[in-house]
C-alpha cells in the first residue's frame, strides 16, 4: 500500500547486494546457532571464533558489495542504502569484533559459555543495521525491537546474578514502555500524514506545525531520549550498566550507541526534517538536563561502571546538542562525537575486562589504586582514555567536543556552547579521579594484573587509535563530513 503510493521515478532502486551486511549477518546468526547446538558443547571457543569469522566475512562482503556513494532505496522504499549507512555498518562490525575480543576471557572465566551470547550479539547488531538503513517508520520499529529484545536477554545472561536480573527487568519494563510510546507517536504521525515512508513524511510534514503533530513528535522524542539514556528518561542507565555483565555493558555502551545515533538521524533529521523547530527545542532541553545530571551524578559514584553510566548520560547530552542545532554541521559533529566516544569507551570497558579476574569484578574505582606502580603500561593507557573522555588534547575526545561546540556557535547558540564547556569542566573531575587513584595512591595489597598479551596488544592498538586520531584527526573528521554531506 505504502509502496504503491510512492512515485516510481523518485530514486534509483539499487541492487539487492547493497543489503549484504544484513543478509550476511542474518545468515551468520542462524548458522552459528546451529553450529553451536551441534558442536559447541564439545569445543570451547568455537562459537566465539565463528563469530569473529562471520564479522570478518561481513566486513569483507560489505567492503566489496555493500558500499555506495549514492542514495539507493530497496525493498519498496523500506530500506535505504547510502554512504552514511555503509560507514556506520563498517563501524558496527569493527566495534562488535573488538567488543567480542575483549569479552572472551571474561565470559570463559564466568562460565558464560553459551553460544546464545554470540548469537544475541549478532542479532542485536542486525537490529542496529536495520535501524541504520531504515527508511520507513516500520523498519525503524523493527530494527529497534530486534536490538532491544536482544539486549534485554543479554543483560540477564548471567542467570545466577540477582543484580543482573534486576537490571534486565528494569531495562525490559522501561524499554517496553518506551517502545509503546514510540509506537503511539508513530501512529499519530501516520494518522496525520497517511504515510509510513520517511521520505514522504519529510515532504508532508513541511506544511507546518500543528498541535497534533507536536504531540506526535513529542512521543517520538521521548522514545529516542530513552534509547539514548538522556534525562529525564535515564533511570535505567546506571542500573543496567552496573548490573549487566561487564561484557554486555561494553556492548550497550558502544555498539548499541551506533544504533541510537541512526535512530535519531533517520527519524528526526530525515523523516521530520520539515519541522525542526519542534524537535530541536525538545532536544535542547533534554540535552541540557542530561549534561547536568550526568556530570553531577558521576561525581558521587564509587563504582566505575556506574560512573561510566553517568558519563554516558552526559555524553548523550553532547550528541543531542549536536542534533539540537538542527543543521548539518551539528549532525556531523554528533557523528564525530559518537564515533570518538565509541572508540574510547570500547577501550575503557576493555580495561575493566582486562583487569577482571576469575571471581573478581574489577569495577570499583578504588580497584584502580596504585595501578601505575603495578602495571605502568595499563595505567598510562587508562590515563589516555580518561583524558580523552574528559575532552583534553591530544586525544580524540577533544576533537569530538570541539566539533559540537563549533556547531553550537555556528548556530548562534553561544550560551549553550558556554554551558557545555563549563559542565565538561565539572565532568573532568571524575575522570581525573580515576587517574588520581591510579597514579597518586599506593597499591596496597592489590595484585599485579595478569599478563594476557593478546588482549594487551588489542588494548594498546585501541588506545593508540585514540591518541593518533587525537594528534592527526583529519581523517576521521573528513570521513564523517563526507558521509553526511
Amino acid at each position: 500500500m505504502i509502496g504503491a503510493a510512492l512515485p516510481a521515478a523518485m530514486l534509483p532502486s539499487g541492487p539487492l547486494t547493497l543489503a549484504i551486511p544484513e543478509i550476511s549477518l542474518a545468515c551468520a546468526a542462524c548458522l552459528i546457532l546451529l553450529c553451536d547446538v551441534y558442536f559447541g558443547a564439545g569445543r570451547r571457543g568455537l562459537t566465539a571464533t565463528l563469530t569473529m569469522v562471520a564479522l570478518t566475512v561481513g566486513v569483507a562482503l560489505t567492503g566489496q558489495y555493500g558500499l555506495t556513494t549514492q542514495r539507493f532505496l530497496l525493498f519498496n522504499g523500506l530500506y535505504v542504502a547510502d554512504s552514511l549507512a555503509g560507514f556506520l555498518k563498517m563501524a558496527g562490525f569493527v566495534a562488535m569484533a573488538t567488543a567480542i575480543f575483549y569479552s572472551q576471557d571474561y565470559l570463559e572465566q564466568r562460565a558464560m559459555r553459551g553460544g546464545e551470547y554470540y548469537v544475541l550479539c549478532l542479532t542485536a547488531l542486525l537490529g542496529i543495521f536495520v535501524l541504520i538503513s531504515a527508511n520507513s517508520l516500520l523498519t525503524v520499529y523493527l530494527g529497534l525491537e530486534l536490538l532491544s529484545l536482544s539486549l534485554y536477554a543479554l543483560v540477564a545472561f548471567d542467570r545466577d546474578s540477582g543484580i543482573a536480573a534486576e537490571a534486565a527487568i528494569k531495562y525490559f519494563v522501561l524499554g517496553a514502555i518506551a517502545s509503546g510510546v514510540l509506537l503511539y507517536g508513530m501512529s499519530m504521525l501516520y494518522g496525520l500524514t497517511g504515510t509510513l515512508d520517511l521520505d514522504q513524511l519529510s515532504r508532508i510534514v513541511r506544511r507546518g506545525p500543528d498541535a497534533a503533530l507536536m504531540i506526535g513528535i513529542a512521543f517520538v522524542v521521548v522514545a529516542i531520549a530513552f534509547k539514548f539514556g538522556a534525562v529525564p528518561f535515564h533511570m535505567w542507565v546506571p542500573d543496567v550498566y552496573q548490573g549487566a555483565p561487564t561484557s554486555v555493558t561494553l556492548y550497550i555502551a558502544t555498539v548499541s550507541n551506533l544504533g541510537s545515533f541512526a535512530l535519531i538521524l533517520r527519524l528526526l533529521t530525515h523523516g521530520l526534517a520539515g519541522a525542526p523547530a519542534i524537535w530541536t527545542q525538545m532536544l535542547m532541553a533534554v540535552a541540557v538536563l542530561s549534561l547536568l545530571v550526568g556530570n553531577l551524578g558521576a561525581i558521587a559514584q564509587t563504582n566505575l561502571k556506574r560512573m561510566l553510566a553517568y558519563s554516558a548520560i552526559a555524553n548523550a547530552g553532547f550528541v543531542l546538542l549536536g542534533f539540537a542545532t538542527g543543521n548539518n554541521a551539528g549532525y556531523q559533529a554528533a557523528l564525530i562525537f559518537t564515533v570518538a566516544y565509541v572508540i574510547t569507551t570500547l577501550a575503557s570497558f576493555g580495561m575493566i575486562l582486562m583487569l577482571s579476574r576469575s571471581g573478581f569484578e574489577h569495577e570499583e574505582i578504588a580497584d584502580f589504586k596504585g595501578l601505575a606502580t603495578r602495571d605502568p603500561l595499563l595505567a598510562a593507557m587508562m590515563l589516555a582514555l580518561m583524558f580523552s573522555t574528559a575532552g583534553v588534547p591530544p586525544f580524540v575526545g577533544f576533537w569530538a567536543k570541539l566539533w559540537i561546540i563549533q556547531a553550537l556557535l555556528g548556530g548562534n547558540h553561544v550560551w549553550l556552547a558556554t554551558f557545555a564547556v563549563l559542565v565538561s569542566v565539572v565532568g573532568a573531575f571524575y575522570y581525573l579521579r580515576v587517574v588520581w587513584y591510579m597514579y597518586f595512591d599506593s597499591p596496597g595489597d592489590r595484585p599485579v594484573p595478569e599478563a594476557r598479551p593478546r588482549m594487551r596488544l588489542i588494548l594498546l592498538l585501541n588506545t593508540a587509535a585514540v591518541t593518533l586520531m587525537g594528534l592527526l584527526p583529519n581523517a576521521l573528521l573528513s570521513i564523517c563530513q563526507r558521509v553526511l554531506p
Partner: protein
Amino acid sequence: MQQLGLLSVVIWLPIAGGLVTLAFGDQRARAARWAALLSSLLTLAACVSLYAGFANGTANFQFIERLAWIPALRSQYYLGIDGISLPLILLTAFMTVPVIIAGWSEIDKRPAQYYAAFLIMEGLMIGVFCALDSLLFYFFWEAMLIPMFVIIGVWGGPRRVYATLKFFLYTFLGSVLMLVALIYLYLKAGDYSIAAMQQLPLTLAEQRWIFIAFLLAFAVKVPMWPVHTWLPDAHVEAPTGGSVILAAIMLKMGGYGLLRFSLPITPDASHELDWLIVTLSLIAIVYIAFVALVQQDMKKLVAYSSIAHMGFVTLGAFLVFYIMAATGSAQGAVNGLDGAVVQMISHGLISGALFLCIGVMYDRLHTRDISAYGGVINVMPKFGALMVLFALANSGLPGTSGFVGEFLVILASFKASFWFALLAASILVVGAAYNLWLVKRVIFGEVANPQVAKMQDLNPREFLVLGVLALAVLLLGVWPAPMLNMMEASVQHLLQQMLTSKLPGAA
C-alpha cells in the same frame, strides 16, 4: 607549504626523548636519567641554534613551518617565532636542564616517569610559544596540563591530590572559555591562524566578550589577583622541579597569551578595560607582596612573590593605553612592553633558582618552615652566597635581571601617572623587606639548631646548577641589550597592533 624544520625539532625532540626515557622504565633508572639529560641538552643546543639563526630587526615571524594539519577545520600545523616568543623558548629549554639535574639523586620514586613527564612538558610548552595557529596553540596549551597534573600528584607533598586537582580544574575552567572565543573567531575569520584573527574587524561588544574569555584563561595562568589561589597550593605541594617549571615557565604563558592574543585581537576592548587589568595588577603588586611578607613556608613566600612580580608583567602590558593618552609618546609605551617581557624572563630565572635553593635545603632538613632554619651560611657558605644573590635579585637589586624589568615598568608607569608609579615602586620596599627578612632568618645569624649544624654544603652538581643560573641572572642584569634588541621590532609591531582600532569603519 614550508617543510618541517628546527622548530619542530625543539618541540618533538624532548617529547620523543621523554618517550624513550619512559621506555627505559623505572628499573633502569640510570639509563633513563642519562637519556633525559641528553634529550634536554640536545633541545637546548637546538634552541641555541635557533638563537644564532634569528634575525633581529624584523617583526616578521621566522623559522616558519606551515603544513596541512586539519584541512577539515582549516587549521594548520603553523609554527614560527618572533622576538617575543624566542626569549621564552630559550628560557624553557634553559630551565628544563637544571630541573633534570636537580632530580638526579633526589627522585627515587618512579624516576623514569618523572623525567619523561618533564621532557614531554618541555616540548608542549615550547609548542605553545611556537604555535601560530590558534587551534594548535590550544592543543599544546591544554595537553601541557596532563604532565603537570601527574607531576604534582605523584611526586608532591602531603596535600598533593588537593593541590593538583585544584590546579587542573582552575586552569581547565579558564581555558575552555578561551576555546569558545577561539571557535567564535574562527567562524568569523574562516581560519584558525592567529594572524587572521588579529586582522579581523570586530565590534566593541564582540571584543569585550572575547577579551573577557581570553582574560579568564590567561589571568588564571599568570596568575592575577583574585584568581591566584591555586598557585600557592600547587607550589607548596609540587616537587622542586614542578615548582621550578610552574614558576619559571607556566606562569609566563598567561603573559604571553595576553601579548599574543588579547592585545592584538581585541585592542579596543583592551583599551576600554585597561583600568581593570591595571587595578588588578596593582593589587597583586601591593597586596600580595604584603601577603608574602607574613608567610612561614619558604615556598609559599616565593609563590606569593611570583604573583606580585607577575603583576608587573600585566601592568607593563596594559599601561600602554594610559601612556599614549597621557603623553602620546610611543617610547614610554615601548618601555612598558619591554619591561613586561624582560620581567617574564628574569622572573623565570630568579624564581626558578629560588625554588631550587629551597629544594636544596628541603633535601637536607625535610622542612620548608622558615623557623626551622637559621645561620645556614655558617655551614653552607657557597649555598648561602648564592641564595642571598637570588633573594636580592628577587627584590630588584640593580645589576641583576630583576632590576631591568621592574625598572622599565616603573619608568613606564611614571609616564602614565605618578600614583601608579608610586604604588608599583612600593614593591621595591616591600619586596626588599620580605626577601631580606627571609635571608636574615634563614641564612644569617647563629646556627639555629643541631639539624642545621649537620647540613652539608652544595655538592658539585647542585653548585653547577645554581652557579649557571646565577651567571644568567647577572648577565641579563648588566647587559640586557641583546635581549632588548631581539624583541625590539616585535614589540614595536605589537604596539602598532594595539593602537590600531579594529572596530568596523574605524580604519
